[in-house]
Structures are given as structure tokens and as C-alpha cells.
């Protein structure tokens, strides 16, 4: 939830729904049982193995339009604020990418809010480059 909370803090258009935490609690056990989903945690053994960082990815099968039909998506990477600057995020991205490729990913993709240049920089260090921009427009006519 901290991951989504930070995204919302930097970008009001991505703010959370009121029941987001409850939805996450229900979704997590399901995700952990899915073969096409990778969920990694980094735990601080000095604090009783409490998770201090995590990364989640998904192997998505897409219709045969572009060359790759098995797309490995880096969905979320988050490091607790107190444990940043130690390379945990970079390590998680590396392990996650290897896991997705091991499951058959033919290409890896990730979407990062434009308000989070540090997140993009982390993925750039891992070999990711810009492919597209996602744009948004409100249709409110009030």
C-alpha cells in the first residue's frame, strides 16, 4: 500500500480508492498462488525478518499483434524509506526480471508515473528504455 500511496502522493490522478487496502488484503493470497505472477520480498534479518522491500511482476500473454506474445511486466518495486540507498531496489528488479524471463517472457515492460523519475532511473539502470508515453485527459465538462 505504501507503494501505491507514494504514487498517489506524487500524482493526484493516481490517488487510491477508499477501499484499496481491503482489496489488496483480499488479492494478496490469490496472487501468491498464481504461477504467472512473481512476488519477491527482501527482509531485514536484523529486525526479525520483517519485509523491508518487495517487487511484483506478471507474465502476461497478449494477442499476436506485436512480435512478443509473452510479456513480462514489472508491476511494482518498493523499498521502505528507512532502507533506501542500499541497492535493494536494483537487486529486486534484477531478480524479478530473471524470474520473468525464466517463466518465458520474450520482452519486459514497466509503466512508471512521470512524477517518479527515480523509479524510471532504476529501471534504466536495469536496461529498460522508453517505448511509449501514456497520456490522460479528463472529459469533465462541469
Amino acid at each position, binding site marked *: 500500500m505504501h507503494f501505491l500511496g507514494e504514487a498517489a502522493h506524487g500524482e493526484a*490522478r493516481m*490517488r487510491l480508492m477508499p477501499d484499496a487496502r481491503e482489496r*489488496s488484503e483480499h488479492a494478496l493470497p490469490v496472487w501468491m498462488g498464481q504461477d504467472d505472477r512473481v512476488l519477491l520480498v527482501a527482509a531485514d534479518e536484523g529486525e526479525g525478518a520483517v519485509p523491508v522491500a518487495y517487487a511484483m511482476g506478471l507474465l502476461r500473454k497478449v494477442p*499476436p*499483434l506485436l512480435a512478443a506474445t509473452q510479456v513480462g511486466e514489472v508491476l511494482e518495486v518498493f523499498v521502505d524509506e528507512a532502507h533506501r540507498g542500499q541497492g535493494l531496489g536494483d537487486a529486486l528488479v534484477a531478480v524479478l526480471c530473471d524470474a520473468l524471463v525464466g517463466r518465458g517472457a520474450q520482452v*519486459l515492460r514497466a509503466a512508471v508515473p512521470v512524477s517518479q523519475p527515480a523509479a524510471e532511473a532504476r529501471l534504466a539502470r536495469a536496461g529498460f528504455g*522508453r517505448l*511509449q508515453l*501514456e*497520456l490522460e485527459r479528463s472529459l469533465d465538462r462541469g
Partner: protein
Amino acid sequence: MEGIPIRNARRGDIPSLLLLWDAMLAEFIAMDPRFALHPKAREQMAAEFAAWLQDPARIVVVAEEAGRMIVGFAAGVRRPGNGWQVPERVGRITDAYVAAPRRRKGIARRLAGRVLDLLYEDGVGTVRLAAAIHNEGALAFWRSMGWSDLEVVLERPVPLADEV
């Protein structure tokens, strides 16, 4: 523009839609080889167009010149949100293309405007789209219509160039 009205697509438009889609992807690939097509892409897209025309959540509109030639199209869809972040319902423009000889006549603006109008009538308040990072013309076009950057989509090849 007179002589090029915008209307909803019909099943009989599919061959023309495919020709425009071919041209659109050829331009994308010329800008960025990462958009290389799957060998079954055309067959897949024909099936998708046919399905879209039957799907009430989908919108496909065309610009037809002189009552007989499709010179542009745009497509959109209504979707639920991701379940965690607002909004709960999101519209998406999935495709928008005008044949090169017919550009700079306001056709793309009218096509996109029709899709947005139909999404708005359907209760959608937020719409998103993706534009290729090297397609500066498209990015300038969408931004001129009030669209703003939300996310950057990144890609990494498998394997990495230095791992080959």
C-alpha cells in the same frame, strides 16, 4: 471538413480498416523497430476489428471521403479501472490514424473528438491512450488537444544486447 464525414464503422469497412492499420504499423516500425509485427498480426487484427464491431464497450469510427473511401479511423473502449486507483471506469483511445495524404485537414481531431463524445455519453470521465515515444507528431497532436503525460512505458529486450 465537407465531403469527409465521420460515422460509425460497419462490417464492410474491415478491409479498409486493415489497410489503414497496415499503414499505421508500417509508420510505427519505421520510427521504432520494437514495434515489429507478429507473423499472424494481420489475421489477428482482422478478427479484432470484427469483434470490436460487435462489442458494445467498443467504439470504432471512420472518416469517409466522397461516400466511398475510408481515409482515417479511430477506436476506443470503456474499461473498469485497476481496482486500486481512481477512476473506477476509464475510457481508452486504442487507435487513431489518418492516411498521410489526408493529414493536416482536421480529420484526426474530428475522429478523436467523436470517440471522446461517445465515451462521455457513456459516463466515462477519464480517457487514456498510449503514443510511441518517437512519434513526436502524435505526441504534439494529443497534447494540443489537452492530453497530459501520466506514465512512461519502458521496455527491455530479452536478452539484453550485452548478454547476447
